[in-house]
């Protein structure tokens, strides 16, 4: 079991080293949680490589993290892609860091159609724009909402948007 696991691990590492160079990406690992951190401009080809040659055919989730108040952070946002190899059951987390003002990433929709709504959610909550997305608009908040709620500088209770409606009194009916 362990031998085949290390063999699988070496598989995608070799691919990434061949494409990005041995210093082009960072890895970390805790028990069975394996992560690869790539730079922003290499994300598209990394995901394509992992899908087509690495066997990671399923995208589980795309999410983001805001490191604004994190003690030792160098970059503001991290965008995390969770991948799964359905034949071997291996999971991998691919992470990039983005900073303002270039909050752009290439969209994963050409690779996985399921990335559509996931990227819309990341855009809605954090404001990260995915280039090449067919229909990038808000998905959870209403279209007229102007802020990005899950950023750390947005207060939990909002800035008054939730109560910005006309009141209907009894007499108006």
């Amino acid at each position, binding site marked *: 079991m362990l031998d085949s696991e290390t063999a699988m691990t070496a598989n995608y590492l070799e691919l990434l080293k061949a494409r990005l160079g041995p210093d082009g990406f960072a890895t970390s690992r805790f028990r069975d949680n394996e992560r690869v951190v790539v730079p922003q401009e290499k994300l598209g080809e990394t995901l394509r490589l992992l899908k087509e040659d690495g066997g990671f055919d399923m995208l589980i989730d795309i999410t983001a993290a805001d490191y604004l*108040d994190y003690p030792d952070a160098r970059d503001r946002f991290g965008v995390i892609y969770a991948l799964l190899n359905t034949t071997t059951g291996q999971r991998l987390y691919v992470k990039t860091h983005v900073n303002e003002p270039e909050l752009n990433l290439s969209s994963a929709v050409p690779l996985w159609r399921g990335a559509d709504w996931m990227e819309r959610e990341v855009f809605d909550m954090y404001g990260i724009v995915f280039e090449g997305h067919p229909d990038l608009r808000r998905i*959870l*908040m*209403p279209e007229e909402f102007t802020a990005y*709620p899950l950023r*750390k*500088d*947005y*207060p*939990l*209770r*909002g*800035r008054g*948007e*939730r*109560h*910005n*409606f*006309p*009141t*209907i*009194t*009894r*007499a108006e*009916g």
Partner: protein
Amino acid sequence: MALGVPKDIMLTRLDYLANWVRANSLWPMPFATACCGIELMATGASRHDVARFGAEVMRFSPRQCDLMIVAGRVVMKMMPVLQRIWLQMPEPKWCISMGACASSGGVFDTYAVVQGVDRFIPVDAYVPGCPPRPEQLIQSIIDLQEKIRQTGTLTGREFERRTASEAPVNLVPKLNPDNVVVAPGDFTTATKTQP
């Protein structure tokens, strides 16, 4: 009139009749958005049967209802829809705010959840609970029936006088400014970490 009968005795008897008719056939419009909707369905099911009280048909068209039961939390994206449904209901109409979330926002004091639908819709009865048991909802319908019998009129005159908004008023302006305690972490600073 020639007889010594008060002029509006006819009207009070008509009012009484209209109230009796309306109270005993409240057709609910189930505006179930979340978990309270399940308890609303349970109230309409056979064990706790709300049809005993006249709420026979839960019509999903607002044009055919006279009681809107807002069951569940209402988010800001849903609020205009709620107002539109309320306006589509014909008079006389009443509203029951079911559960903690519809009455006050419940546990969800966040950027997306409206803290009580009574800020934007006139509410007649509030049912506390998370979720309220079917018996509590039935009690609120009984109380609403009582309210209709006591304050209802044939032509709906009692609604015309209520022109003030019934939303909760902010308490802070009423306090003496010296007595206002500035607690740490109000909504603008609540998400900042401590240095």
